[in-house]
């Protein structure tokens, strides 16, 4: 239980999610393929941030932050990203202009150079990595890796500001994982029979294998830190 606080004391940022800096924040949630992108929108709406689900290049150019949600399989995701010309927009806005970027699940996996989900597919290639299937281990683990799991941070990052160890439990659902060659870009790992990469980050880019928009208060906190992040 928390200790008594005078009503006049300033609110602590971590415990009061509504205290966010809302000035000039707008988030583009990239719309590609089939699936549930509404939940990312709902989560941002819940913390009071303007967002738009879009594949319109002008809208993406005008926003302050970009989220690439996780929808469908690697190959499908990449072909619709290319079909809508989103790869060029993302390269321009994220790599050249340095807009804060969050990739979620498949939205993290496609940052790799190559993915092996139902065939071999070329990714965005922002990180030297490949995406391969989780294999059933000796401990008889179930595939897909579905449910809540603890992550371990490999380095500090503002996106986990205010997190205690016990809060670092997030919702995962995936059968493929990223094998990364640039170990300095690993932000967090997770154990599921093997240790795999649960999050990557460098410069203005962060991406997670888990779903913050489905991870209750921990996920809401992470999204709030993301929209307040000014790398």
């Amino acid at each position, binding site marked *: *239980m928390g200790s008594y606080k005078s009503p006049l004391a300033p609110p602590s940022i971590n*415990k009061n999610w509504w205290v966010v800096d809302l000035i000039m924040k707008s988030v583009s949630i990239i719309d590609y393929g*089939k*699936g*549930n992108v*509404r*939940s990312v929108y*709902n*989560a941002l*709406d*819940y913390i009071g941030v303007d967002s738009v689900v879009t594949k319109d290049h002008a809208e993406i150019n005008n926003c302050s932050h970009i989220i690439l949600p996780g929808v*469908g*399989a690697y190959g499908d995701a990449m072909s619709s990203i290319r079909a809508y010309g989103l790869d060029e927009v993302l390269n321009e806005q994220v790599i050249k202009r340095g807009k804060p970027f969050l990739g979620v699940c498949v939205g993290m996996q496609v940052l790799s150079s190559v993915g092996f989900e139902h065939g071999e597919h070329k990714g965005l290639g922002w990180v030297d990595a490949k995406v391969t299937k989780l294999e*059933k281990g000796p401990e008889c*683990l*179930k*595939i*897909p*890796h*579905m*449910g*809540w*799991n*603890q992550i371990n941070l490999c380095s500090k990052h503002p996106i986990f500001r205010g997190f*205690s160890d*016990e*809060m670092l*439990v997030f*919702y*995962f*659902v*995936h*059968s493929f994982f990223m094998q990364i060659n640039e170990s300095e870009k690993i932000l967090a790992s997770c*154990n*599921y029979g093997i240790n795999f990469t649960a999050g990557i980050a460098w410069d203005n880019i962060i991406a997670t294998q888990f779903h913050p*928009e*489905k*991870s*209750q*208060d*921990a*996920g*809401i906190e992470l999204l709030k830190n993301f929209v307040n992040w000014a790398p």
Partner: protein
Amino acid sequence: MLKKRIIPKFLLNNGSLVKYKSFFNDKRMAGNPVSTAKIYNDYGADEFIILDIVPSDESKSKVLEIIKTISEEVFMPLTVGGGIKSLEDINLLLRAGADKIVINSQAVINPNFVNEAAKTFGDQCITISIDYAQIKDGVHRVFINGGRDRTKHNPIDWALKMQDSFCGEVLLTSIERDGNMNGYDLKMIKELDSKLDIPLVISGGCGGIQHCVDALNAGASALAISSLFLFTDHSPIKLRSHLYSNGVNVRASKNSRN
């Protein structure tokens, strides 16, 4: 390590929350699904299962509305089903905010349906629901259409067959135990879990904390619970802290996380 999941299960009859015993007896109204979902969200449940048990065109649009409302304020996985017959049914629910779709009768009626759905929306998106009962000593059969029609399938073989059709998860419900709160079918859980490569969610019979501990020890990945939460003073938060302090690998409760 992956945590074991505690999943409140909601049964909807034309949009309102209901609960029976053994699928057909002792109908009880159990309140408003949206407000109950919000409360369980604050209690820190891990996921929701929401099933429309008497599906019709009218109830389907009500369910869509309910999922839409819940997903605006509840940020955890929503597993939704009942009367899923086509890819379009699935698409509508996903667009309304569902994350996983439960398929039951249609998998028996159209054996290719699960495979087709998994290919279109991803394996992890499809949960196969199996309702079973014992028809004579040691012989179990799968029932469809809300427990009304018996099929020729044995639940274990059927689950393995559905796994080969690329469903992502199995929801196993014992019709006899449903709502009776006298414990899960541990023998069936053990046997199925030892053969299954995908996660197993079990349902039917939970009446106390020890039942939950036993079922998780028998190999279940997750517990789907309704009566225990709806009709006793147990809540997801209470169950979680009991399990946690008994050394079961569940998420810590919300209070101790903050």
